[in-house]
């Protein structure tokens, strides 16, 4: 008790409880009110009055210490338990000031720890944000690279497209040019030959040159009278039928149609493309033309029109080439051979194919000829020996 008194004098609240084996409070004393225990009743159950005893009684080991227990009013006490013959002593020895001192120290330590934890957490978040930022940056760079690649590819494609366009334009221009050339050449060449010239790209044959050619002139006998008496529509119809029948023949014999003049035509062989036997081709064409016009003449006669057909053929050198000026060129022949053929055509009667002696010699083997004799031809100083092609010697025709 002296010890308790000394502690009380030191400013510490000290109290005690004494509990018997039946857990009945049999004694209590000291500064019980400091711990909210002023209303303790002796002789009553101890644990119900001092709830901090819950679970500790009966005492298992002695002595027993529960340090720094705050029971009430902010006061903390060390609880000392020990037993003697009569029961269990519980002494409450105030340690509030020690508890508060320890709390202050611990508080600082915990605050520091919490601060460090918070700092660590913020650092982790910062690192995560940095990592996300870096990832986003890498993604952005990848996107930018991809965009640059796409841009470069697009530029390359655009350049390629521009090249294609240029090539296409050049091709179109070339094709247009070819078509124009073909159209120009078709005016005086068989279409197949015109296209051949265009495909080879060699137009040198159109330049002025001399060539041994066979020239064929033909026209309709009685056309002038027919044109005077017939309706214009009938004249046009007759010419359409006439041309439709003869032009394909000229093309099939690969003759060069030099010109149309009304019912007259001029056809050249061996130029601009060479052929082995121009006179023969000219004569064979002439025979075919005569037969074709004969078939048409039957129809025309039924309509009351007396129409005939005459042809003249000559062979010799002529000057060949384009004649005219830019935008209006013709390919034509100039020379005596042309005049001769024209004059023979003029003097030929219906169904006559008048040829010069040179032509007659060239085709004599497969053509039946009749000599007409010497004819004075306008424009020529000497008369010409002229023959008429009667028919082809079919049995002698080359296969």
């Amino acid at each position, binding site marked *: 008790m002296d010890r308790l008194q000394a502690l009380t004098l030191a400013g510490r609240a000290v109290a005690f409880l004494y509990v018997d084996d039946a857990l009945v409070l049999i004694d209590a004393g000291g500064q019980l009110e400091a711990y909210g225990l002023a209303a303790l009743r002796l002789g009553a159950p101890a644990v119900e009055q001092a709830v*901090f005893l*819950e*679970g*500790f009684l009966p005492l298992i080991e002695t002595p027993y210490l529960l340090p720094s227990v705050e029971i009430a009013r902010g006061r903390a006490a060390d609880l000392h338990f020990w037993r003697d013959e009569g029961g269990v002593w519980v002494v409450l020895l105030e340690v509030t000031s020690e508890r508060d001192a320890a709390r202050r120290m611990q508080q600082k330590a915990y605050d520091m720890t919490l601060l460090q934890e918070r700092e660590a957490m913020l650092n982790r978040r910062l690192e995560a944000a940095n990592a996300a930022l870096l990832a986003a940056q890498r993604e952005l760079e990848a996107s930018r690279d991809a965009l640059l690649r796409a841009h470069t590819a697009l530029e390359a494609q655009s350049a390629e497209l521009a090249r294609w366009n240029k090539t296409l334009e050049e091709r179109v221009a070339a094709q247009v040019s070819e078509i124009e050339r073909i159209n120009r050449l078709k005016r005086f060449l068989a279409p197949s030959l015109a296209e051949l010239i265009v495909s080879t790209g060699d137009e040198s044959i159109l330049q002025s040159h001399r060539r041994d050619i066979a020239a064929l002139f033909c026209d309709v006998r009685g056309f002038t009278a027919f044109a005077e008496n017939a309706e214009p529509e009938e004249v046009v119809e007759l010419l359409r039928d006439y041309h439709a029948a003869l032009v394909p023949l000229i093309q099939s014999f690969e003759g060069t149609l030099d010109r149309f003049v009304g019912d007259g035509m001029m056809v050249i062989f061996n130029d601009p493309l060479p052929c082995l036997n121009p006179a023969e081709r000219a004569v064979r064409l002439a025979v075919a033309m005569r037969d074709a016009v004969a078939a048409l003449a039957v129809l025309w006669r039924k309509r009351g029109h007396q129409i005939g057909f005459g042809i003249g053929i000559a062979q010799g050198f002529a000057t060949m080439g384009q004649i005219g000026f830019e935008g209006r060129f013709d390919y034509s022949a100039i020379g005596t051979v042309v005049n001769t053929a024209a004059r023979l055509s003029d003097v030929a009667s219906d169904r006559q194919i008048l040829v010069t002696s040179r032509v007659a010699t060239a085709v004599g083997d497969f053509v039946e000829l009749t000599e007409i004799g010497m004819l004075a031809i306008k424009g020529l100083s000497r008369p010409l020996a002229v023959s008429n092609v009667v028919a082809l010697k079919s049995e002698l025709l080359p296969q």
Partner: protein
Amino acid sequence: MTATVQKKICMLGGFSVGKTSLVKRYVQSIFSETYLTTVGVKIDKKTVTMGDRTVHLILWDLAGEDDMASLRMSYLRGSAGYMLVADGTRRATLDMALSLHQRVEAECGPLPYTLLVNKHDLSEQWTVSNGDLEELRRGGWSVRPSSARTGEGVEDAFTDLAARVAP
């Protein structure tokens, strides 16, 4: 006449997880933003009525566990059950609660307990995931999110534990 029983329940967990605040919310229905660490143990009493019985819950709010101050098992003597508390914003406190559970079971044997993962009002800062809690529940744990600040889950947790310690 109603029967009266008295049960000791200990609050266990790392420091600053909110054990004192949970007890204050449960006993006094108040919350303080000021953090005041507990040294030793602080004892409170809450009386609840369960059917025809009155149950006095003697709540022992133990100092938080940390590297410097480890749990004094002497405080747990005579405990009928315990409340493990973790801070959802600090993943390490959940690990500490699990560790305390193992030590208490080794020392006191199996007792009713509930794990409160506190500070659910700061759920956006939680580092404990719902998947963690689900995994614990699948392992047989009684786990509840709670908030001493808002009172979320507090009353229910204590009532449930009271029913288990005083069946």
